[in-house]
């Protein structure tokens, strides 16, 4: 039952073949069985989840009209606050903090009857591409437990790949939904910036952060997308417009007549051969399904990474200033006679990990008087150029595509001491955040040389998220015909693994 898609689980619930409580319990059992190896979860809220499930079952028994995902369990990235449930963002500095309010994403999930199983592991404050930066230890990739599950949302993607949950929420600042999806053989979507409320999403980089849906199929992802998306008056940057019809697009999966732009700059040197091979095969499948494949160029993408590593750290240096031990979270050095300043210093010294400190320092420097124009100012100009590149390309095509990542999952520890190599992992995902458009990663096979999943990225213009779902569903259907079974069935069983 737990290996089904959320859509299939929903059918079992509505037909009465199972109950939400049973389904939730099955997932809790699975977590108990395998999470010791995977470490996808930081906190499992068994009691809260079973209560939510019982409520949905009761509502169903009363004949109430329920949303399509009512009663389906979900794993929530630990960067979104949920009232009364510990939220750490993978950091020591928030250890023990229980938020007194719900994020809008959580409110929307609760309103739809989605059952929240618990909070998933992540790189501290969403800074990283491997989940190794979590203060609570790394998450392991279910395809190979010695490898990373991607990051920052490695917990959410690993939970999906390990069948600990059929649905998950991630957040994506530079690829933190799509890259984990790619390396775990799951689906993840970063909606258009402003498509999903950021209220209650603990900010890393406000102008780039976006929460989004993760699942094992394109349709499940679309269903979750529609649950969490929509205008929110509590988020000033939330777009006040109807949610794109992503479920309809995912159900149709129609690409006839669509122009698919292959980004010249995101498919060359530095891309693993198996990644390129699976990507090219996918393009052929899409062409067979009736799409027209064209090449597009985005000359400014080469500056995206550099600009990103000025903008994101700048915003984070300010966003993370609030963690000062005064009102919540960790407090260190509060002895008699200690000044507020020394308590702040000691708490931040002990509470933040190396990568977070590195980015706070970078950002503080970049915003400093005398450096602002050269760094933050220039980076914003690059951002505008990248947006123009997308606009120009979208005049020639309906969606743009690329491999999601240059490589398959690397080994835990392999890049831990080489931040630049780690940053390069996000080279294909970052431009999407810089322009605020939508991006999806879906599995397109395993690389022949290492047997690890490869991600296919689809990018769609602002508030045209339905386009990537159309293409994603078409590709998924074609691949499934080829494979005969979902890609995850090729993943090793976790039973008895070390």
């Amino acid at each position, binding site marked *: 039952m737990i290996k089904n898609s959320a859509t299939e689980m929903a059918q079992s619930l509505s037909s009465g073949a199972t109950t939400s409580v049973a389904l939730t319990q099955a997932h809790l059992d699975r977590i108990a069985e395998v999470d010791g190896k995977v470490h996808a979860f930081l906190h499992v809220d068994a009691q809260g989840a079973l209560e939510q499930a019982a409520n949905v079952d009761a509502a169903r028994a009363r004949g109430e009209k329920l949303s399509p995902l009512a009663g389906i369990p979900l794993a929530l990235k630990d960067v979104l606050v949920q009232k009364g449930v510990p939220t750490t963002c993978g950091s020591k500095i928030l250890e023990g903090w229980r938020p007194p309010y719900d994020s809008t994403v959580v409110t929307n999930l609760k309103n739809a009857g989605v059952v929240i199983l618990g909070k998933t592991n992540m790189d501290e404050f969403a800074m990283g591409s491997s989940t190794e930066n979590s203060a609570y230890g790394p998450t392991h990739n279910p395809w190979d437990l010695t490898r990373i599950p991607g990051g920052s949302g490695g917990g959410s993607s690993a939970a999906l790949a390990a069948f600990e949950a059929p649905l998950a929420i991630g957040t994506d600042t530079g690829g933190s939904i799509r890259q984990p999806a790619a390396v775990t053989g799951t689906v993840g979507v970063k909606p258009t910036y402003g498509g999903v409320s950021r209220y209650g999403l603990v900010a890393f980089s406000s102008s780039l952060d976006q929460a989004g849906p993760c699942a094992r199929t394109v349709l499940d992802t679309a269903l979750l997308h529609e649950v969490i998306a929509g205008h929110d008056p509590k988020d*000033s940057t939330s777009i006040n417009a109807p949610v794109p019809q992503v479920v309809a697009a995912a159900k149709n999966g129609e690409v006839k007549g669509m122009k698919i732009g292959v980004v010249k700059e995101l498919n060359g040197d530095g891309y693993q051969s198996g990644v390129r091979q699976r990507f090219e095969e996918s393009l052929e499948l899409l062409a067979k399904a009736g799409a027209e494949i064209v090449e597009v160029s985005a000359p400014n993408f080469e500056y995206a990474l550099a600009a990103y590593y000025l903008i994101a750290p700048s915003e984070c240096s300010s966003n993370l200033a609030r963690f000062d031990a005064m009102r919540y979270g960790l407090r260190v050095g509060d002895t008699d006679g200690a000044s507020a300043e020394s308590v702040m210093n000691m708490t931040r010294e002990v509470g933040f990990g190396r990568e977070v400190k590195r980015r706070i320092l970078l950002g503080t420097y970049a915003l400093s008087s005398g450096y602002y124009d050269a760094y933050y100012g220039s980076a914003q100009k690059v951002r505008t150029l990248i947006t123009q590149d997308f606009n120009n390309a979208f005049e020639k095509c309906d969606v743009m595509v690329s491999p999601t990542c240059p490589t398959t999952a690397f080994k835990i520890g392999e890049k831990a001491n080489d931040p630049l190599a780690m940053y390069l992992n996000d080279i294909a995902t970052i431009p999407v955040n810089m322009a605020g458009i939508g991006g999806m990663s879906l599995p397109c096979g395993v690389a022949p040389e290492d047997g690890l999943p490869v991600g296919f990225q689809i990018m769609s213009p602002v508030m045209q998220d339905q386009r990537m779902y159309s293409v994603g569903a078409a590709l998924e259907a074609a691949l499934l015909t080829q494979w005969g079974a979902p890609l995850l069935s090729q993943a090793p069983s976790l039973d008895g693994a070390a």
Partner: protein
Amino acid sequence: MSALTYEDVISKFEPVLGLEVHVELNTNSKMFCGCSTIFGAEPNTQTCPVCLALPGALPVVNEKAIESTILIGLALNCSIAPFSRFARKNYFYPDMPKNFQISQYDEPICVNGYVDVEIETDEGPQTFRIEIERVHMEEDTGKSLHVGGSTGRIHGADYSLLDYNRAGIPLVEIVTKIVPGTGKYAPEVAKAYVAELRDILRSLGVSDVKMEQGSLRCDANVSLRLIGSEVLGTRSETKNVNSLRSVERAVRGEMIRHAERLNKGEKVVQETRHFQEDTGLTRSGRSKEQAEDYRYFPEPDLVPVAPDAQWIEKLRAGLPERPSLRRKRLQEQWSVPDKEMAAMINADVLNIVEETVLLGADPTKARSWWLGEISRLANEKEVAISELAITAKDVAEIVSLVAQGELTDKLARQVVEGVIAGEGSPAQIIAARGIKVVNDDGALMAAIEKVCSEQSETADKVRNGHLPAAGALIGAVMKETKGQADAARVRELLLGHLGQTAN
């Protein structure tokens, strides 16, 4: 302690001013969240995830605050920017929950305005134009109470208490361009400017403008340069100036302090100074030479402010009459002498006098009640006139009763006292206290005869033409009639009784 006199200072130096005024808006909710803004509530009861900066919380702009700021800009003759942005001002302090303040930096909402202020000079009234550089929006911080230690400052305190009720209250900062050319009148001009701002803000209804509660705060920047020099001197910025009088004292005090240093060949340090209400002096705060780098950048959580041009014109059309013009108009309409006008403004009774006049009272009478007896009672009780339980309607009624001869001035004072004591309306008090003018000549004559026989010697003096002696007898008759008699009528009857004629 100062060796220099003010005259010494101004004979050598020209002061240059720069004034920054912070105004707390009186919106019902905070700048970026829905929390209440009521002053004086229990600490930390008016807070939420947003103004406590809980992880994940986001600001949303209060539209009413934007409207108030645009009104202020328009009233100060500013241009309203079609596009402006919020920025983050980053610095760590325990009473600032986010450790950054949402403010505006290089893209403020209102720019390039002016205010004309008039002051008395040796050559008569003179108008000074104060140019406004910018008006921008920001949020207030929380309040720290540093307990223990001698200075009340964070250093040396045993512990500090934090109240976040004020955190996020909308603030508007009004910044002048440099103000040269005020010469020896710099302190008066500074005071008049803040007073004029206060009046304008009050007329707009956008703030309580109570300096003593901190809803209007002034930072005075002062520098000196040698007369004739084009080069600006180093400035000091004096904070904590919380009354109009203090603005004047602070500017004067800083001018003298700077001049003393400069005369001794010392440098003026660019720094923040704190005004001491008791001594009128300033003491050094933090030095701006190790200036904090606020690392301003555009606030990514808020979309830019782009007010609709039609809306701005609608607000402009609804602006109230400029207070200084209104004062001139009322002074003319009521034929008030300059001194009396100044007294009314100082006592802050202009509005209530106008209200009383609009209810039909004679302007002179209305003015003399509010400025005289009622002000005296307020002083006696050490409260503001507005806190007394007497309204324009009460005073208008009393003025009308006196005009009709139903009350004498003296009786009217008793009625005023009764109203203030909460005994009811003038009519109720007159009835309850049995107050009425004694105009029955028979009763008066009886009292006069009684007094004249009791004080026959004095009565004889009057009979013999020594009229000043009549005062004592009139007083005694008034006492006899418990003050309810019309003193003029008593005098008339008394003099007649003693064979003299009233003039």
